[in-house]
């Protein structure tokens, strides 16, 4: 093998270090063998240039793909109750955003007065405070549950610690806060 081929192979071996660890352990040696065989087969200068362009493109695409896949594997799957609570939370804050958008359109685009009914104290409290706070409780409860499960799983807390305890820890002050706000 010519010295410039060896330099290319050396660079390729170094560049392979950017692949995820698990992938490298499994396929690094194979990839180097294959690259070496391809280099030997590309015998003319034109073939070498074509090979280098092709190999560079292949390297960049594959490197990105494998790193993204490794990243996806590293992130634990979202528990179903987190997904449920997120959707529920979003549903509960939706009226607030709908009303805000409606008011903005009325005021700034149509130059009309905002319907009085929307600004009545009882209605306002429901969509601006009660529903968003409820959403906050639901989402943070699910988040705390997930966190506590994670902590219990990794042995930093006793697994006997109840989820109900977490809920109370977070929920009671929030309920108090809502009550005080409503009063």
């Amino acid at each position: 093998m010519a010295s410039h081929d060896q330099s290319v192979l050396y660079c390729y071996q170094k560049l392979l270090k950017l692949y995820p660890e698990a992938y490298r352990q499994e396929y690094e040696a194979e990839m180097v063998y294959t690259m070496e065989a391809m280099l030997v087969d590309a015998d003319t200068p034109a073939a070498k240039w074509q090979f280098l362009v092709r190999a560079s493109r292949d390297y960049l695409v594959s490197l990105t793909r494998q790193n993204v896949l490794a990243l996806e594997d590293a992130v634990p799957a979202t528990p179903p109750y987190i997904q449920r609570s997120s959707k529920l939370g979003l549903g509960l804050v939706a009226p607030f955003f709908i009303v805000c958008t409606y008011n903005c359109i009325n005021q700034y685009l149509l130059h009309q007065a905002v319907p009085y009914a929307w600004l009545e104290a009882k209605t306002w409290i429901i969509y601006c405070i009660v529903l968003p706070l409820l959403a906050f409780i639901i989402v943070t409860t699910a988040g705390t549950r997930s966190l506590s499960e994670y902590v219990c799983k990794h042995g930093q807390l006793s697994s006997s610690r109840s989820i109900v305890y977490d809920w109370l820890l977070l929920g009671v002050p929030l309920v108090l806060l809502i009550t005080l706000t409503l009063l």
Partner: protein
Amino acid sequence: MDLLPQVSFSILFALSLQPRHGYEIMQQVEHDSGGRIKLGPGALYGSIKQLREAGLIEELASVHGADRRRSYKLSLAGWARLNEELAYYKTTVSLARKRTVPEQGV
């Protein structure tokens, strides 16, 4: 049934003749596709990884002591999948033959 990506199908097709190591697979894929599919090591081993994880190909126990390259062969599931894919393509080709394909520029 979702069709396999083109590269994965080509690898299975290349392995249907005999077990091969990586570079041989690349050459066979290029040959089978008439030079249209030219794989690099990244694309090849990325697909091999996926196919192995799906149980469609398996590593062949090394027979040559000095040759450290790993060879791959189709698993039973791989054969079944390849036959399904080929049946699909056969149906598509037979349908295409029945249809009149307009010539370019018409």
